[in-house]
């Protein structure tokens, strides 16, 4: 039960409200006029169905204004606005219906024009429902906010994608023939979108449309295009195509250039950055092939350098290249020569991209470590050094100046051009002053001694292969040696000089001896102790060969009384003519082949063992190889196992025409043990120690093995030599390596 006090309070309130609405008019006339004004105002503001005739209703604005003034006097405008907005909400189903219709149609046809039409239609609703100006800006903004809120709530989840497609359709066409006008013609759309608050709501969608457009363009125009720089093209494309679109999208309403600049500043730099990043990412992905293509990929490298200055993708580049190298380069299937040339190209390319050399240092490290573990790396580098490459694909530029090997430089504190190391340089980074390629390659190993040894081996092989004392070839080697002297120093190549002198001395001596008494023998006389270890052999030349040797040695002794010759019968080449009953065979063969065929001229059938015994002692595989040579030439035939017979008469059917071919049968094994082979021999002594160590102590890392071997008397191998040896043992299946630990393969 209400108390008296409550009742009087209610009465007072009612009285107050009544008098406010009645405005002190007699009776309730005031209340009645207020009611009329309220009715009029709410009715006029009520959102109408645009599809029905009622929407055509014209209202007298004067009456409306008077009604609003009246309501204002009664402080009822907020209530009016509330009612209006409430009505708006209730009427929104009208818009929702149309949105649904349009969306259904769009989903059926995927026509972006439908969405455009929808937006224009919504804009129509928006305008139609907008309260008259007279209600003031607060009212209008409250309306806009509510309209947008209602709109967003009814837009289906499929709308953003449709909107995005519509945005995409406003982009300039990739087809240069299509006029840019199409971009400007999208203005109504953008205006509608802006009016409806869609610009703000879908800001990221619009931006992504721009990004994707740029991305697509960069990828389609730049992928695989490495020869020339693409950046300037991309920039002018941005200016010609993207900026007009940005203008109509973001700066439609700008009045002055300053305003335009202000509006586009943020989004413009974001787009510019995105273009750089896309290109940078693309080149990062392509880097391995770009390096392969070098020097035909200079443009791409310069672009990459420029992009990297804007976009910090250096770490990603290193990672990508390292990954590609690991996958495509540093595996057993790749030829050492290929790895070397890709390494050299990498050096050249990364020097362009990053002159201080930090990237190169990081990328090169795994390659260098891998190359160090390969058994034929030194030989490859050296044969390249002496221009031994058959395909002439030299690692070294012809025009690169020849200079002495540089020492890994110590910091020069007095250098006025000193610059701090780049911030991403690791602690182990060594400033890579542009040293020449050869220095870089040689520095894969700690000492150049192995190179010098290998050089000697290679030179020895090549010189021994020179027949007929070909002056020109020897001269070529001499020039090579002169060049190498500059690189490796005079002393290192002293031995090579002696070898070359032996060659020319041999020629001179032979000329002399031939005058004394002509001979078919033309020896290369070498100085022992100056030539690399030659493969030893117990071969003894039989029959006429021995006579020829003795005769020549005698004549030599006449010419050089204080010297004598000691033949190395396993080396050299013999040019023979065999006269058989029905044919002649003219061949150049290694000495062992010659020795065997000489024996067959004494007796037509020989067993392998007899043959081996008759020429001193040679190993079976070598003997077999020599015999196969004759079998291939159809001079010998293997009758029973290991028994060979001379074919005085060819067994081939006579009607097959045969050429008298001059055949050169060359040695496929180098007669000189390579420096690395010699090295391996030395290492073998230590195998027992390593085996024992790994048996007793289990898997060990390289460093540990090295430090333990140091205790072994006479051990003087570097850790690299050890590593090469272990790697060789691994290939032979003796060792396994996992996570840097070596263990016995059992």
């Amino acid at each position, binding site marked *: 039960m209400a108390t008296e006090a409550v009742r009087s309070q209610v009465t007072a309130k009612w009285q107050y409200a009544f008098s406010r609405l009645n405005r002190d008019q007699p009776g309730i006339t005031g209340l009645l006029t207020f009611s009329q004004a309220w009715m009029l105002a709410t009715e006029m503001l009520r959102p109408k169905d645009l599809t029905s005739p009622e929407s055509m209703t014209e209202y007298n604005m004067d009456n409306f204004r008077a009604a609003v003034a009246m309501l204002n006097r009664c402080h009822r405008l907020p209530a009016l606005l509330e009612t209006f907005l409430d009505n708006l909400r209730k009427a929104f189903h009208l818009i929702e219906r149309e949105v649904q219709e349009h969306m259904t149609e769009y989903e059926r046809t995927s026509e972006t024009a439908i969405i455009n039409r929808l937006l224009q239609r919504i804009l129509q609703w928006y305008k139609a429902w907008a309260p008259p100006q007279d209600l003031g800006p607060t009212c209008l903004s409250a309306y806009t906010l509510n309209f947008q809120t209602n709109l967003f709530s009814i837009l289906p989840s499929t709308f953003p994608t449709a909107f995005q497609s519509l945005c995409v359709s406003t982009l300039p066409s990739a087809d240069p023939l299509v006029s840019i006008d199409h971009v400007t013609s999208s203005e109504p759309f953008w205006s509608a979108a802006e009016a409806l608050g869609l610009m703000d709501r879908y800001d990221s969608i619009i931006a992504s449309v721009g990004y994707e457009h740029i991305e697509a363009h960069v990828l389609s125009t730049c992928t695989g295009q490495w020869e020339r720089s693409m950046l300037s093209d991309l920039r002018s494309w941005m200016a010609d195509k993207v900026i007009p679109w940005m203008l109509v999208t973001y700066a439609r309403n700008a009045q002055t250039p300053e305003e335009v600049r202000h509006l586009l500043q943020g989004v413009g730099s974001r787009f510019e950055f995105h273009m750089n990043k896309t290109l940078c990412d693309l080149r990062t992905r392509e880097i391995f092939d770009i390096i392969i293509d070098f020097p035909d990929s200079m443009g791409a490298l310069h672009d990459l350098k420029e992009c990297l200055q804007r976009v910090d993708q250096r770490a990603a580049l290193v990672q990508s290249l390292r990954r590609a190298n690991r996958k495509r380069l540093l595996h057993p299937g790749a030829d050492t020569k290929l790895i070397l040339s890709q390494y050299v190209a990498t050096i050249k390319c990364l020097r362009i991209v990053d002159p201080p050399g930090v990237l190169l240092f990081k990328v090169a490290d795994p390659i260098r470590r891998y190359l160090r573990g390969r058994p034929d790396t030194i030989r490859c580098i050296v044969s390249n050094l002496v221009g031994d490459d058959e395909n002439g694909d030299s690692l070294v530029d012809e025009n690169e100046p020849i200079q002495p090997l540089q020492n890994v430089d110590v910091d020069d504190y007095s250098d006025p051009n000193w610059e701090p190391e780049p911030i991403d340089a690791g602690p182990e980074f060594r400033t890579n002053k542009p040293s020449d390629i050869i220095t870089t390659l040689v520095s894969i190993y700690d000492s150049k001694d192995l190179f010098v040894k290998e050089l000697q081996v290679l030179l020895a092989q090549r010189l021994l292969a020179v027949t007929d004392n070909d002056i020109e070839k020897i001269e070529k080697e001499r020039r090579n040696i002169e060049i190498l002297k500059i690189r490796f120093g005079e002393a290192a190549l002293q031995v090579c000089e002696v070898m070359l002198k032996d060659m020319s001395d041999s020629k001179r001596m032979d000329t002399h001896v031939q005058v004394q008494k002509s001979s078919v023998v033309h020896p290369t006389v070498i100085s022992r102790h100056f030539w690399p270890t030659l493969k030893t052999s117990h071969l003894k030349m039989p029959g006429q060969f021995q006579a020829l040797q003795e005769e020549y040695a005698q004549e030599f002794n006449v010419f050089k009384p204080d010297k*004598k*010759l000691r033949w190395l019968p396993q080396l050299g080449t013999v040019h023979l003519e065999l006269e058989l009953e029905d044919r002649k065979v003219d061949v150049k063969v290694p000495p062992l082949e*010659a020795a065997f065929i000489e024996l067959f001229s004494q007796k037509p059938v020989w067993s392998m063992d007899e043959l081996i015994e008759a020429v001193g002692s040679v190993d079976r595989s070598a003997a077999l190889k020599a015999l196969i040579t004759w079998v291939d030439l159809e001079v010998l035939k293997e009758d029973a196992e290991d028994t060979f017979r001379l074919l005085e008469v060819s067994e081939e059917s006579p009607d097959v025409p045969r050429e008298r071919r001059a055949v050169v049968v060359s040695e496929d094994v180098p007669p000189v043990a390579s420096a690395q082979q010699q090295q391996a021999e030395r290492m073998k002594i230590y195998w027992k120690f390593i085996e024992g160590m790994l048996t007793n102590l289990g898997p060990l890392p390289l460093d540990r093995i090295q430090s333990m071997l140091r205790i072994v008397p006479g051990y003087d191998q570097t850790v690299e030599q050890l590593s090469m040896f272990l790697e060789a043992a691994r290939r032979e299946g003796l060792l396994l390596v996992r996570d840097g630990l070596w263990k016995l393969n059992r």
Partner: protein
Amino acid sequence: MKVTVKHWHAVAQWRWDTGSDADNTHPTNNEEEEGDVCGICRVPFEGCCPSCRMPGDDCPLIWGECTHIFHMHCLLKWIGTAASKQQCPMDRRPWVTAERRV
């Protein structure tokens, strides 16, 4: 069958004929070993003395009547010192260079 040698590119090493080695018949046995060295510089005869760069005729040997052999340059250097008293370093007898038998 008749085998005719048209051309033989052979390879040989030269040695000083010191008259001492009967190992001609076993060329390969000798391959590994160092061979005779000059007592003064300890470098093999077929190598060159420390002051030379090219072996052979440029750095010849010298024979003493005492049958001792050295690099010529090494011996001359020794003989040139007062301490040598012109004696053979091997037997300390007065050095007399032998006429080479040819």
